[in-house]
């Protein structure tokens, strides 16, 4: 199974891997969710969704389905 942002645990940091653009909103890419950038899971709402992350120094919350599309390498 692939490691994605959705499988991060609270406080875990990871590096974003290659991205399949079709499934991720461009907006997220523009906010810094790009290969090579660091992501950290800060908190999740109850039932793991949405997820509150820092990506490329920005504080963002995204839903789990999108998080599942972003492959990462855990640090």
């Amino acid at each position, binding site marked *: 199974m692939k490691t994605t942002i959705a499988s991060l645990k609270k406080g875990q940091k990871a590096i974003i891997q290659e*991205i399949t653009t079709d499934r991720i909103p461009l907006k997220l890419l*523009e906010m810094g969710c790009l290969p090579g950038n660091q992501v950290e899971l800060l908190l999740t709402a109850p039932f793991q969704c949405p997820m*509150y992350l820092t990506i490329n*120094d920005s504080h963002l919350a995204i839903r789990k389905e999108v998080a599942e599309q972003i492959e990462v390498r855990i640090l």
Partner: protein
Amino acid sequence: MAKQIKVSLIGNPNTGKTSVFNLLTGLNQQVGNYPGITVEKKEGICKLPRGIKAHILDLPGTYSLNASSLDENVVIELLLNKKDKDFPDVAVVVSDIENIKRNLLLYTQIKDLEIPVILVINMADRMEKKGISLNIPLLEEKLRTKIALVSARKNQGIDKLKKLIVSYNTLPTSPCVDALTFEPEYFDRLKRIFPNQSIYKLWLVITQDVNFRKVEKNSKGITPDFEIKTESELKRLQQKEAIKRYQFINNTLKETMVVDQNKATGVRAKLDRILTHGVWGYLIFFSILLLIFQAIYDWSSYPMDLIDQGFAGLSEVIQVNLPDGPFVSLITDGIIPGLGGIVIFIPQIAILFMFISILEESGYMSRVVFLMDRLMRKFGLSGKSVVPLISGTACAIPAVMATRNIENWKERLITILVVPFTTCSARLPVYLIIIALVIPDTKVAGFLSYQSLTLMLLYIIGFVTALGGAWLLNRMLKMKSKHYFVIEMPGYKVPLFKNVFINVIEKTKAFIFGAGKIILAISIILWGLASFGPTQNFNKAETIVAEQYPNISSENLETKVASYKLEHSFIGYAGKAIEPIVAPLGYDWKIGIGILSSFVAREVFVGTLATIYSVGSEEEATIKDRMAAEINPVLGGPLFNFATGISLLLFYAFAMQCASTLAIVKKETNSWKWPVIQLFFMSGFAYIVALIAYQFLK
């Protein structure tokens, strides 16, 4: 006189753009909608040194020039169209020191459009605390612009910004990054075909519809045969573009910015842990809600009573001092109550928007969205619909206005359409009187009474219907709106009084001028229908009543005449005409008149019944006694029995009886379509539910 400099304020949401706008323009601003769409348009005038004036346009917050919402599209359409009357002489890009990396992405895009750009770095007062230092001259050189360090909070740096605006024509207009170098062949070809166009503009036009909607390309000079790329190829290129830009930004910031990590404070992390906690987070949120409710109900009742009395007093003064006649009646019974019906909402709107604006400014609202998103998604809404739905318990008008921060148009529309189902305070007087009439005043389980349980149940029914309606609409509305849910979680800030104040003033003004006209017009029409009758019976009311009751006291005579007149007015006949329609619900023509008149506002019901039953006062006890004595003309027995009562309660719970809400929905959706659908759907639904309830219970 020198010409006005046209300035566009552009920036990511949450960068303090509004603060900068407020500092530049103060109260010299106005809010409207862009023609044809419901995106907010804020403009203002700013006085600059040497007597020059600037026209400041505050564009909607946007993360990039690739539009994914109507808000963002406005920004691009303006910047691509040199002929637009608002096309800026200079663009001011507002960024915030803590998110400068992301903010600069938009900056580099704007810079590529080859218009003069000034960069504002806001919240400069936080730099020291965060351990951030910037090499401004080097940064200015790298970004090829001038920078103003601004602290809206401490009122610093605005003079520098004004000076930069005055001398805008000395700013360089060349791009600062070669963002489109990732596919030389493609862009070289593009350049050869359109030698006179800015390549980045062309690129924006080509990619626009990938994200948002189709644009008329021919008008922009692009022929269809050039579009050899598929959508996913274009998206891929856009990703490359973003990477390029970030490379430039990262390199630039590496040379110009130093961050001392030790100084970064953990206030945000601590607050987030509590405010978004699975238990505490919800508890805190519901406590805040309770406080807001309390404020809207309790605090606003004092100014509302004063306004009510003020308008009643004004009516009386005019009545006493001017001769009787239709003109005076129009003023005292039509125009003044109509105006009063608008003004009376001001305290509730102001209080609600004070709270909303404080919560938003402080950064807390994003946490609410975060907490509630999952719950609301089941109904086709998002976390952002929570606040409007809850505001609806006070009054649907500010609630509909509060949907403006929902970017997704479909979600926003659904929220607007279901908000009036939540039990607003105008239903209370109707609920209270009917519950008192038909629900026994006995206790269950020692302390709970059936009456208070019924009231609670009605509130729950309102919420459930709103959510159910949303669920249904989400399936029915075939509306294409790209769905992306990415919310930014801004840092916490102490709200600025000036921003809150200006926001409250603007929202209240928007209501008065937006909804006010329609409410006033409907009030006057209704006054006409109630003050004129088609037959002689209406005009001779005094004589007829006097003949019927020869020994009546003059005070009683007056109320009897009023009742007789209402019965024989146009609305009276309309009430009788609809009797066959409302009879299956258990109502007679008198209730019919009450219902018709309460299509302006629900609370009118009680007053209308008071008139038609010719009770002199609007004391609840008096009307209640009179209603209890009313006999059902067809079936005999008390008219307000359990079945009729429940049927009426349900009718009032669901029917769209609020001209003000319809007016504001018309304004916010920019069309008559949605308020009309709302009116017929809600009232039709109310009719069916009330019908079923009565037929089962009778």
